[in-house]
């Protein structure tokens, strides 16, 4: 019977161990040329924010879709909605708004594309890149429209760009149709908190819209809140606790019908106990 060469086996195992330590710990493969789907979650959020920012600026949905596919999210819309809600919760309202709009557009509501309000400076940066008319007549004619619509602009921007801009960049965005108040019902449910004002915001396809700012005003003050902060109740859901005997007025910040004279209704349980009910308002964007 031949003896097992323990010495050789031991040397082999020692070498194997050393090789693994070197290749896994001391000098693992260096990562270069990675893809966006391998990014850490917070960087994926940054990437989505950049995609949404670019979409808000250009309205190029196909390009946004292609970029989102790089992140390999199981469901891009869910990922965007979840991120919009996280951002709302952390007070990043503008970015949350852009992300919610992209999610909305991906849900098939492309007509709802409403870029965020254009700051005055936006026009200012458009002006320096006005090409010399003789070299780019199309861009010039498009730019003239901008001049017409913003006569108060004084082109004092010092940055000069020689490159020809895309004519599409100077298109003035259209404002989406204001939301309609399609339902307003008083709710007497003793299981709900007193004075609960529930709001549901839907797009034209009756999908719930997260990240919609709601303004509420009463005699002595005003406040604002957003849909989507309670995703367990729906992405387009928001609520507010009304103080009994106060009269409230509600409107969506981006334009909608006004629901006014909202006062928590007095209700009674079957036992005759009194409590204050609430309201449920449903806003929808018209087709």
């Amino acid at each position, binding site marked *: 019977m031949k003896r097992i*060469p323990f*010495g*050789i086996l031991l*040397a*082999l*195992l*020692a*070498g*194997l*161990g*050393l*090789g*693994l*330590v*070197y*290749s*896994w710990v001391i000098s*693992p*493969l260096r*990562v*270069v*040329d*990675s*893809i*966006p789907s*391998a*990014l*850490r*979650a917070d*960087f994926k959020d*940054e*990437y989505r*924010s*950049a*995609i949404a*920012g*670019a979409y*808000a*600026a*250009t309205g190029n949905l196909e390009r946004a879709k292609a*970029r989102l596919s*790089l992140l390999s999210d199981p469901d891009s819309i869910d990922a965007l909605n979840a991120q919009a809600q996280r951002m709302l919760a952390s007070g990043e309202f503008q970015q949350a708004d852009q992300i919610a709009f992209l999610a909305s557009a991906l849900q098939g509501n492309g007509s709802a594309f409403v*870029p*965020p309000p*254009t*700051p005055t*400076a*936006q026009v*200012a*940066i*458009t002006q320096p*890149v006005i090409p010399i008319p003789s070299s780019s007549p199309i861009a010039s004619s498009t730019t003239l429209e901008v001049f017409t619509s913003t006569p108060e602009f004084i082109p004092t921007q*010092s*940055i000069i*760009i020689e*490159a*020809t*801009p*895309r004519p599409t*960049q100077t298109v003035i965005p259209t404002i989406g149709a204001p939301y309609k108040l399609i339902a307003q019902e008083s709710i007497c449910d003793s299981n709900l908190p007193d004075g609960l004002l529930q709001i549901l915001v839907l797009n034209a396809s009756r999908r719930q819209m997260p990240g919609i700012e709601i303004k509420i005003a009463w005699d002595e003050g005003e406040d604002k809140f957003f849909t989507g902060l309670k995703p367990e109740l729906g992405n387009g859901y928001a609520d507010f606790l009304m103080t009994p005997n106060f009269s409230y007025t509600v409107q969506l910040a981006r334009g909608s019908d006004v629901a006014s004279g909202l006062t928590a209704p007095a209700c009674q349980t079957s036992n005759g106990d009194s409590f204050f009910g609430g309201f449920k308002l449903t806003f929808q964007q018209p087709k």
Partner: protein
Amino acid sequence: MMKTNRWLFLIIAFIAGIGLGLAYGWVIDPVDFIDLTPDTLRADYKADYVLMVAEAYRANPDPGLAARQLAIFGSQSPTSIASEGLDFARANGFDASDIALIQELVTALQAWSGIP
């Protein structure tokens, strides 16, 4: 003679073990890389990210915001990150309008950061 052969076999086995370990650790089952940072992204993805920032910058010309967005690439200055994106875009046949957008961003960042 017998003793020398034995040592030779041991050394050969040890070296073979190292080779096997390296092959396993580098080729067969390399360390899985997840949760990577953006500086590891391939150049084309980096350039596309720069383009996204440039597109957003056109609508909201805030160089500080653009610089913060580009800062995810690490210790490089936002201007050099954008410049690298511009170089890549020029070298790889990006659309002229996209190149113009990145150029606009680079110029704005240079002005913002005081680079002549």
